[in-house]
């Protein structure tokens, strides 16, 4: 994979720097309007300076390679990502197998610079390359009865040593409600900084849902299934009541072991200051309407 596919887009191609800078100035100007929401957005935009590739690739949660943050970088090079395909099945008109080649040629790969907020109260800003999950789902032809989408990670204990231990139920599974899956912010990521997805970040293809905690972003996906019922998800199985199906970033709902009100951006060094965590990780304007009428502090909705 590393040699077969090279993305010729650079960061400045995907997000013209002038646009990015202008937006920043605009937001700085709006900051003066002391509406809380607007100020929050301004703050959010100003912080969208991506982490370095070194940071993004050396501090990961990918329990298939071990529970330490440094294990994925140490062990993920054992993973074979070629050939790779995703089985798309369930309530779709065109079930079948998508090879990575199909995927990379069929969908428009674009850059998305997103905040990434881990449930452990650290965060990064990551320039992903990918395409909207909605594009893949529309090719698959999701049927009307399908209300949820389930995802599954590769199960290969000989290359993923963490799977040899029952620390979690393997393979890792995740899920989204159909409207979340179809949301334009939800992407299938195939690279970072214009390079193919590093193994420790979920090569060759993973989910990114920027308003949810990082564990929803299931890595190294081999199967996507459209379902009528809500599918089980790995962390909710491991600790029900602690991790839920939705896992929306919410500064008002604590983890039992720590507050979610603040977070620490990785890369700030030994004296890095905590910053306030934003509702829906700063994507409130885009996604809050999905959850209208839901009590997001209720245990069944975490």
């Amino acid at each position: 994979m590393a040699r077969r596919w090279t993305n010729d887009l650079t960061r400045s191609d995907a997000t013209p720097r002038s646009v990015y800078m202008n937006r920043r100035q605009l937001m700085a100007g709006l900051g003066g309007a002391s509406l809380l929401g607007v100020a929050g957005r301004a703050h959010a935009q100003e912080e969208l300076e991506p982490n370095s590739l070194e940071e993004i690739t050396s501090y990961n949660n990918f329990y298939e390679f071990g529970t330490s943050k440094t294990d994925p970088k140490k062990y993920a090079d054992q993973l074979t990502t070629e050939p790779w395909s995703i089985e798309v099945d369930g309530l779709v008109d065109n079930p079948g197998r998508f090879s990575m080649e199909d995927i990379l040629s069929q969908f428009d790969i674009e850059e998305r610079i997103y905040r990434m907020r881990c449930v452990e109260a650290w965060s990064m800003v990551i320039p992903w390359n990918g395409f909207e999950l909605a594009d893949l789902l529309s090719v698959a032809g999701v049927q009307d009865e399908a209300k949820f989408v389930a995802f599954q990670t590769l199960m290969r204990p000989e290359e993923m040593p963490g799977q040899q231990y029952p620390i979690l139920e393997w393979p890792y599974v995740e899920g989204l409600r159909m409207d979340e899956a179809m949301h334009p912010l939800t992407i299938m990521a195939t690279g970072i900084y214009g390079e193919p997805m590093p193994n420790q970040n979920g090569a060759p293809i993973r989910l990114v849902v920027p308003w949810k905690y990082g564990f929803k972003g299931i890595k190294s996906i081999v199967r996507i299934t459209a379902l009528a019922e809500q599918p089980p998800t790995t962390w909710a199985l491991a600790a029900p009541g602690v991790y839920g199906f939705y896992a929306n970033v919410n500064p008002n709902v604590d983890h039992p072991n720590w507050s979610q009100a603040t977070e620490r951006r990785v890369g700030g060094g030994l004296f890095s200051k905590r910053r306030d965590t934003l509702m829906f990780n700063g994507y409130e304007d885009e996604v809050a309407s999905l959850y209208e009428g839901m009590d997001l502090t209720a245990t069944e909705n975490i």
Partner: protein
Amino acid sequence: MTFSQRANVGLRKVPSWLVYLVGGAIPFWSLYLAATGGMGVEPINALERELGELAILTLVIVLAVTPFRRLTGISLVMHRRALGLLSFFYVLCHLLVWLVLDVQDLGRVWADILKRPYITIGMAAFILLLPVAATSNNWSIRKLGPVRWRRLHQLTYVISVLGVAHYVMVQKVWEAKPLAYLVIILVLLATRIELPRRLSPAEKG
């Protein structure tokens, strides 16, 4: 001379100040590494964990001194006070990193102590350590008398259980290393339980 006798002679030659110096330097070395990129891209968390593990490891060594002597004849007892005080020092450093570098807010620190069981337990262990550390000197042994002093220092057993519970609970899943520490500590404590001795025929009379 047997091996254990030779070992004991060698161990007795190690001056206490050297144990304090080397042991006391470790957190400063870790701090230096954390500040200069030697502990990865998220040094606060790395340093916090490192110091916590160091404290529990040292506590295990302290608890092992007596069973190890019974088993092998090799005695580390002359260094037990230094090791115990070092463990306290590591706990103190661990706590300071959490307070100053990690949480950064005294109000939140207090809220966490009250609200989060694993922090409540860790803090209880620290508070119990205070009188033990404060009386780790000859003057206190004289002042308290050996019986009361010994009883006070048996708090170490409680502290070690609280400490390792804190370590197990902070993980998101049941991890092997903290559980291994838990088992080791429970085994070391079990060696302290005095089983009712079966009377020998001579004693039966």
